């Protein structure tokens, strides 16, 4: 009925031979380190000091309050889109449409805000906006999901196409419908302040903790809540079990009384809803208006985040943090030294994706052999010989 997507079983379940801490802790770290070594060589060939560049990036990402705020703000987006990719991935689906789903989710948020911000207080508006983001994101994922489940149209192709459709739709709406009259830039009017999600520096100030201003807002907490919910959903509910069963083997799942088409639609809609929450962070949290291109590639980066995080919420938080740091540290690098063009920073990010995503299994074999040699299966303690 549908084309089965090949996926190594370790991808979702971890390696049989390696303990978990090596698999999801050490291996990704080594891969990231390799990526940085290659980036360093590249930077050195361009006549710049790679150690200085690394230091600027690290300090720019974590060194002071404002930079931490930006890093966590990007991380928030990546957690949402990373979780979105992961949920679909557990169901054996490769959802590349996070970009479009985030964009349309933002449209939902904006419609709710523009329609209701004059009438409702923040407390009532927020749940409506969250619901709107989820519904619009899920709705945009539903059509490719339905086509995959009932017609066998491959979800990779349809979700990519839906990204383009989302972009065109948003341009049309922004230029012709929601544009604030009498201005050149295609943007909606600014939301009333009842639709502004409090910034983290405002929220912390309520508790008497003064931190520097940054776009980080309370959506980060929402993102962490989503991590817990996704963890519960995938590993502790019947739906999660069914999603994983279909992902592992759709034909076998049928014999367990599971309807793969129902599960495909379910997993994709949950995935789309999670992507849609990017709209909460971006529009209610930071921009306070609907504008072009606010999704800015977060949906695509979510794929790398999820792959790197081994489709597990904890891994996704860590990978999201890494990519947040790369975004913010990279911007800092461009500020400090104009020899680092934004394109070079994209190259560094690409190398991280290459090593930790595409080449993530390159080191698995050697690591397994090394691990087995260092720690042979029978437990007698011989570690002292090594020391």
């Amino acid at each position, binding site marked *: 009925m549908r084309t089965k997507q090949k996926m190594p079983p370790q991808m979702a379940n971890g390696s049989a031979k390696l303990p978990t801490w090596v698999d999801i802790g050490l291996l990704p770290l080594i891969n990231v380190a390799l990526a940085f070594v290659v980036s360093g060589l590249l930077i050195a060939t361009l006549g710049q000091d790679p150690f200085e560049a690394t230091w600027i990036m690290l300090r720019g990402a974590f060194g002071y309050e404002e930079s931490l705020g*930006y890093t966590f*703000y990007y991380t928030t987006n990546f957690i949402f889109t990373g979780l979105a990719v992961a949920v679909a991935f557990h169901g054996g689906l490769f959802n590349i449409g996070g970009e479009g789903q985030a964009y349309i989710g933002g449209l939902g948020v904006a419609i709710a805000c523009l329609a209701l911000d004059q009438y409702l207080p923040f407390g009532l508006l927020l749940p409506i906006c969250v619901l709107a983001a989820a519904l619009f994101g899920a709705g945009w994922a539903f059509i490719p999901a339905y086509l995959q489940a009932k017609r066998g149209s491959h979800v990779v192709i349809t979700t990519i196409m839906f990204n383009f459709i989302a972009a*065109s739709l948003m*341009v*049309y709406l922004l*230029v*012709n419908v929601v544009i604030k009259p*009498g*201005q*050149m*830039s*295609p943007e909606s009017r600014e939301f009333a302040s009842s639709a502004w999600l409090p910034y983290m520096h405002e929220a912390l100030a309520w508790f008497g903790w003064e931190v520097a201003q940054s*776009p980080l807002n309370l959506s980060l907490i929402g993102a962490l809540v989503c991590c817990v919910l996704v963890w519960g959903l995938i590993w502790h509910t019947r739906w999660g079990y069914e999603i994983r069963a279909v992902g592992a083997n759709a034909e076998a799942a049928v014999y367990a009384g599971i309807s793969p088409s129902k599960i495909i639609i379910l997993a994709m809609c949950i995935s789309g809803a999670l992507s849609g929450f990017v709209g909460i962070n*971006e529009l209610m949290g*930071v*921009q306070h208006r609907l*504008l*072009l*291109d*606010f999704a*800015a*590639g977060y949906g695509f980066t979510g794929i790398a985040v999820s792959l790197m995080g081994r489709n597990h919420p904890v891994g996704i938080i860590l990978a999201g943090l890494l990519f947040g740091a790369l975004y913010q540290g990279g*911007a800092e690098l*461009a*500020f400090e030294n*104009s020899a680092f*063009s*934004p394109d070079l920073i994209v190259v560094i990010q690409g190398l991280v994706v290459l090593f930790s995503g595409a080449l993530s299994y390159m080191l698995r074999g050697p690591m397994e052999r090394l691990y087995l040699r260092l720690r042979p299966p029978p437990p007698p303690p011989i570690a002292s010989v090594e020391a």
Partner: protein
Amino acid sequence: MKKLLTILNASAVLLAATATVALAADKMPAVVFDMGGKFDKSFNQGVYDGVEKFRKETGMKYREFEVKNPTQREQAVRKMAQRGSDPVLGVGFAQASAIEKGAKAFPDTRFAIIDMVVMQPNVQSIVFKEHEGSFLVGVLAAMASKTGKVGFVGGMDIPLIRRFECGYIHGVKHAMASATVYANMTGTTPSAWNDPTKGAELAKSQFDRGADVIFAAAGGTGIGVYQAAKDNGKYAIGVDSNQNHLHPGTMLTSMLKRVDVAAYNTFKSASDGSWKSGIQVLGLKEGGIDWALDEHNRDLITPAMKAAVDKAKADIIAGKIMVHDYMSDNKCPK
């Protein structure tokens, strides 16, 4: 008394001079390019050319940043101000809200923005009278036309492009009251700035209806318009930068919008102390808008045409001709 005044004056000048030197030493100007990037062959690149000229002439370095997502606009503007950059130049109307917030947060820093007005006491807003330049090329188009029919191809249908269109129509009718102007917009989305195929189609349809000169104010789409003009043996008019060299013999002229001059002037005036906040409207008089005459189109411009356009230019500068600004009332009187 007079002597005292002179001394006072001299010391004031000296003070001002030292102040400027101090300013030049520890304050570095900064520019924040928008999402197109500084090598977009159009608007951002014009600014880049201007600030590079400033760097080469004065030897002063500047900070720069190219934004990659909407959040970075405000981040970049704030960061530049935090680092003590002065002035901070934002490129394009999309940066208006970032500049406004930055100007409020850093009242002692000078800001500037091109193509948009931000009303803050420490912001210089630079806008152009595109309609004046469009008027001049309209005069040239009407005089070069043998059929009495000319065309206009706009990019994205936004008020700014209608301002070009309206000025052009005004200029054409000024030179030849009976002339017909065909006007088309390429589209309503940003892709209309970069659709040479559709530009060529629109140009061909206007040629088929009898037009023999077309003015394109459409960014990359214009390339298709110019190619169609060359293929059909007609004339085209370029926009923003001097595009005469693209197809010598086909390009009648180009309407120049000197964003490079604007960027250069902002940095220059800030470094020599003559910088002023408020709205700076650059038109023909200020040299921000002009038409291009060089070795590529000298043969196409007859002495009569040159005399007419020079007179129109002088009349606009003198205020004898008032070119209607579409954006003043969102209307174009016929």
